[in-house]
């Protein structure tokens, strides 16, 4: 570690790595093993005297203001560096709305005058932390579960799966069970639900879950008195039943006709990948994201995948697959961030960094943009844009 810091002192300033999640923002320096801070993606708004979430916006201007305030908080309260003349690595989902990406770029380049920005998609970044060539990244975020297959440094775009099966789905189910148990609408805040989830909930194994869903949760699971109640002003504490503890995460695994449960979309992602990559993908699964830290979740996903693959419609085409799992050298919630930090350290973010990035990554990993380039043409590279995804030998280019 000290060696790289020494080099960073001589060379150029370490770039900062930003992973702006729906609930939590990870921010730190390239080349470090963990983010400097993980804070809620919200800032104190003095005029309304409330915390305002970055993702609560209705107009582009509101989003711009939110991002300005959030970055101010990150730069001047947490990492304490001048935003100017320091490059930024942004770790983002491939499905980030264009408005959000472009507003963030505008804020960074124009408001904070950073010298370069590099975009790394979270799937590839997570895969970078392993060093393995083929990885199936299952990312459980605050809102969505996203499955990205990364094959030799390339995300398989047509196979990306996304379903609203993130932390919010668990919170909603938890709130529903608690309301049902108490017979009233408790209107628990998101904070309290998160606290209950983090401290009391777990994901049981597949056999137990199937049994408990039918016959009720076995009595050896103890219920908890007064979880989250600490916040209720010493007043009524919320008893958390054994059902709430054990079955709050069930919506992630509940199958319906749409085949949209978490194990289903993992298998569909594999199905839509090239046939020669499928075996390798199944043998290199990486589960990341804050949601993956729930005790027992990874084990349960493994059970479900191994069970589901024996059923139609997967049996014929995927029946022979073995599932193997990786563990990344970081905590679940900062795996993608670490990938961004590694990528930034290796490539030197920004200005023409497009070429560097390592053999298998073939320059794709680093889509850098320098400030002067942005000033000339404020356009970001994006995979849905025909300008950027038309191959160079396509006849379209010859027409121009």
């Amino acid at each position, binding site marked *: 570690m000290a060696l790289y810091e020494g080099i960073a002192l001589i060379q150029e300033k370490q770039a900062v790595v930003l992973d702006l999640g729906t609930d939590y923002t990870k921010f730190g320096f390239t080349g470090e093993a963990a983010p400097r801070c993980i804070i809620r993606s919200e800032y104190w708004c003095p005029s309304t005297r409330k915390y305002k979430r970055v993702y609560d916006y209705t107009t582009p201007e509101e989003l711009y203001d939110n991002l300005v305030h959030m970055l101010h908080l990150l730069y001047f309260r947490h990492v304490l560096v001048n935003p100017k003349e320091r490059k930024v690595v942004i770790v983002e989902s491939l499905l980030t709305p264009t408005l959000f990406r472009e507003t963030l770029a505008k804020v960074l380049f124009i408001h904070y005058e950073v010298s370069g920005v590099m975009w790394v998609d979270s799937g590839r970044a997570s895969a970078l932390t392993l060093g393995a060539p083929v990885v199936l990244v299952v990312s459980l975020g605050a809102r969505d579960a996203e499955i990205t297959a990364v094959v030799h440094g390339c995300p398989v775009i047509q196979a990306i799966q996304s379903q609203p099966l993130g932390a919010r789905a668990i919170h909603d189910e938890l709130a529903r069970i608690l309301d049902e148990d108490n017979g009233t609408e408790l209107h628990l805040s998101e904070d309290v639900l998160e606290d209950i989830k983090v401290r009391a909930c777990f994901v049981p194994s597949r056999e137990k879950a199937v049994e408990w869903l039918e016959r009720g949760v076995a009595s050896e699971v103890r219920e908890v008195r007064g979880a989250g109640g600490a916040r209720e*002003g010493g007043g009524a504490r919320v008893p958390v039943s054994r059902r709430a503890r054990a079955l709050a995460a069930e919506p992630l695994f509940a199958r319906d006709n749409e085949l949209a449960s978490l194990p289903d979309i993992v298998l569909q992602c594999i199905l839509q990948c090239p046939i020669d990559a499928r075996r390798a993908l199944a043998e290199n699964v990486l589960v990341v994201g804050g949601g993956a830290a729930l005790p027992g979740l990874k084990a349960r996903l493994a059970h479900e995948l191994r069970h589901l693959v024996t059923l139609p419609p997967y049996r014929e085409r995927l029946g022979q697959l073995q599932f193997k799992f990786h563990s990344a050298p970081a905590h679940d919630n900062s795996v993608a961030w670490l990938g961004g930090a590694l990528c930034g350290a290796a490539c030197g973010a920004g200005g023409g960094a497009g070429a560097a990035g390592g053999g298998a990554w073939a320059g794709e990993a680093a889509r850098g943009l320098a400030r002067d380039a942005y000033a000339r043409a404020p356009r970001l590279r994006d995979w849905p844009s025909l300008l950027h995804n038309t191959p160079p030998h396509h006849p379209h280019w010859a027409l121009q």
Partner: protein
Amino acid sequence: MSHNIKILPGATVCEDCTLEGDITIGGGTVIHPRVTIIAEGGPIIIAEYCLFEEYSTIIHKKSDKQENPPKPLFIGAHNVFEVGCKLESPCGHIGESNVFECRSFVGVDVKIGSGCVIGAACSLNAPQTLADNTVIWGSEHHNREALEKQPSQMLQLDFLSKVMPNYHRLRKPNVHKRQTSRQSQEPIKA
């Protein structure tokens, strides 16, 4: 209401405080001025080496389902009641070495073990039992479990029992044990 206040030798009780009902104050306990202790629902027994700071209020509330004879409220040794805290008869028993921080409030149906800390301005209204060594703090009433009991305030008590007589009129101990555990009370300055 019967006024039956027993002060054991070694206790330092200021005259300028409200004591009503059947109250027993153990040796070594220090009661600052302006403290209110009202035993309307039953006797209050305070053990040794407790510290009651200014404006702290202890009430043993009368309740409808009163037992006969009324159950005493027993306050264990080494409890500290900081400035302005309020305690309303928590089910007859308070353990040892608790700290009730400034302006804290403990409601009627709260059982308190030993070594607990009720943080400043925390109010406990709902019926509950605090396990030993529970610490409650902050406006959101976070709680945690301490490893050991809070250290006792013996130095402070010693100091107070020496200094208080110089500045306040004190109530004299009216119960005498066969042997006084501590050195005789210092003369009260008029």
